[in-house]
């Protein structure tokens, strides 16, 4: 499968990348790792997609089916950042590789659900090429890196040619392959705040093959306890069971303010399953997905509560 023809520019700055993106009026795409973009370009070129399917699901502002320009981000030094900074949290730049997020010792220690999700994405080769931010911008409902980052209340840093801004990750996903990015705007990094004290986090997922393939269902949880063992903060996020990765505050809210006894956790699990809107596709049936939401949320909550009550500030 060959690629369609396009021009290529290795952008030297964020401003240049945004300017080129804007000037192309929807006929350009930015590329970090290329592991999603190039596959889509090849599929579009070979018409391997079912008729009527847009390879970009409308994600390219302007509706371009195949771009005339690919803007490489790899040469922009500041986008490669991967750092844990006291008082700020974890910053994952747009071109930071999945493999590095998976193996970074501080990320593994302080943000284990984030490193685990990165380690479970794709193959070793994909993790050496692909990026966490790219996984988010591709906006697949099943994106492995989304649930943990949602549960941890991550925020995106955005840039256009003239402006810089932030957006909660929870407002970023608009539909399969669709994000809130505007024409000429890119995500420069995702920032994960420091986990609360006495908290635990977890990400659990399932796929047919266990490795390599996309997750059918994923669930992430963050639970923080007060000194009396009552839940201070809880967030639960799901992947693969709705048009976007999603937070389920109606489920997590049931835990807040109380000691997470078994019947409380069971109610939260049931509420999470209720909030899921799964479809049947090649990876799993809707019924299986809904059942597995229960299982995975139950496990993720058990992990998170266990780690929080173990007195550690973070999970391990």
């Amino acid at each position, binding site marked *: *499968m*060959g*690629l*369609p*023809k*396009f*021009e*290529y520019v*290795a952008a030297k700055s964020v401003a240049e990348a945004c300017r080129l993106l804007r000037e192309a009026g929807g006929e350009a795409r930015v*590329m970090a790792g*290329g*592991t999603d973009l*190039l*596959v889509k370009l*090849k*599929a579009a070129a070979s018409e391997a997609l079912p008729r009527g399917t847009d390879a970009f699901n409308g994600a390219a502002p302007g509706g371009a089916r195949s771009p005339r320009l*690919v803007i*490489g981000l*790899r040469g922009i030094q500041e986008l490669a950042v991967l750092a844990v900074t006291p008082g700020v949290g974890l910053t994952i730049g747009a071109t930071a590789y999945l*493999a590095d997020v998976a*193996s970074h010792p501080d990320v593994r220690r302080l943000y284990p659900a984030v490193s685990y999700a990165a380690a479970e994405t*794709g*193959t*070793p*080769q*994909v993790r*050496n*090429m692909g990026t966490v931010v790219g996984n988010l911008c591709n906006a697949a409902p099943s994106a492995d890196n989304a649930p943990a980052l949602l549960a941890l209340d991550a925020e995106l840093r955005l840039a256009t040619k003239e402006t810089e801004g932030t957006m909660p990750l929870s407002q970023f996903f608009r539909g399969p392959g669709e994000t809130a990015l505007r024409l000429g705007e890119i995500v420069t990094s995702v920032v994960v705040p420091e986990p609360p004290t006495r908290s635990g986090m977890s990400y659990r997922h399932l796929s047919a093959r266990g*490795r*390599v393939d996309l997750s059918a269902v994923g669930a992430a949880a963050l639970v923080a306890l007060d000194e009396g063992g009552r839940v201070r903060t809880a967030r639960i996020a799901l992947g693969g069971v709705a048009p976007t990765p999603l937070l389920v505050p109606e489920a997590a809210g049931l835990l807040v303010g109380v000691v997470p006894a078994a019947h409380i956790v069971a109610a939260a699990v049931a509420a999470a399953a209720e909030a899921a809107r799964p479809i049947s596709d090649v990876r799993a049936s809707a019924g299986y997905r809904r059942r597995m939401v229960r299982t995975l949320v139950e496990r993720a909550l058990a992990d998170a509560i266990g780690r929080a009550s173990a007195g550690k500030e973070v999970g391990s």
Partner: protein
Amino acid sequence: MKHPIVLTVNGEEYRLAIDPYRTLAEVLREDLRLTGTKIGCGTGDCGACTVLLDGHSVSSCLTLAVEADGREVMTVEGLAPSGERLHPIQQAYVDKGAIQCGFCTPGMEISTLALLLQNPHPTEAEIRAGLAGNLCRCTGYNKIVEAVGAAAEAMAESGSADGAGASAVGADGPTADDQGRPCAMWPPVG
């Protein structure tokens, strides 16, 4: 518009002018005639096109050649630069019967090298995880897993997979190319 690029492949430098939409796999096979690297699925699923890029395993079918500009590529041809004596990884694949049709083998062997550079003594589970991005439709994987274990032992014995300055080379000892730099060698990546 063609882009001028410089690729270092198996220790040899190539100056090329290439279209931006061509993949590294295409350039290796069609321009450099290094046809050991295979193109299977073309979508990053099968691993037949795996090469090392600056010491990391990547799918060359999903790497734009322009983005490999200035970087070091290693292909299966770099494992046995003399073309005669096999690299310990290749010898292990032969000895263990880990090859049938052979189409996946170059990618498997490069992934094996990438794994052993990071983890010279992998467990079976680690071997399977390390080769998760390489599909074989013939052998059923057990022979391949055995071969990786045997290669790890062979390379540990010759001190080639770990240790500062050591190179992953065959029994001939370190092999150097025309510029005197060792082939088939990258420092372990961390």
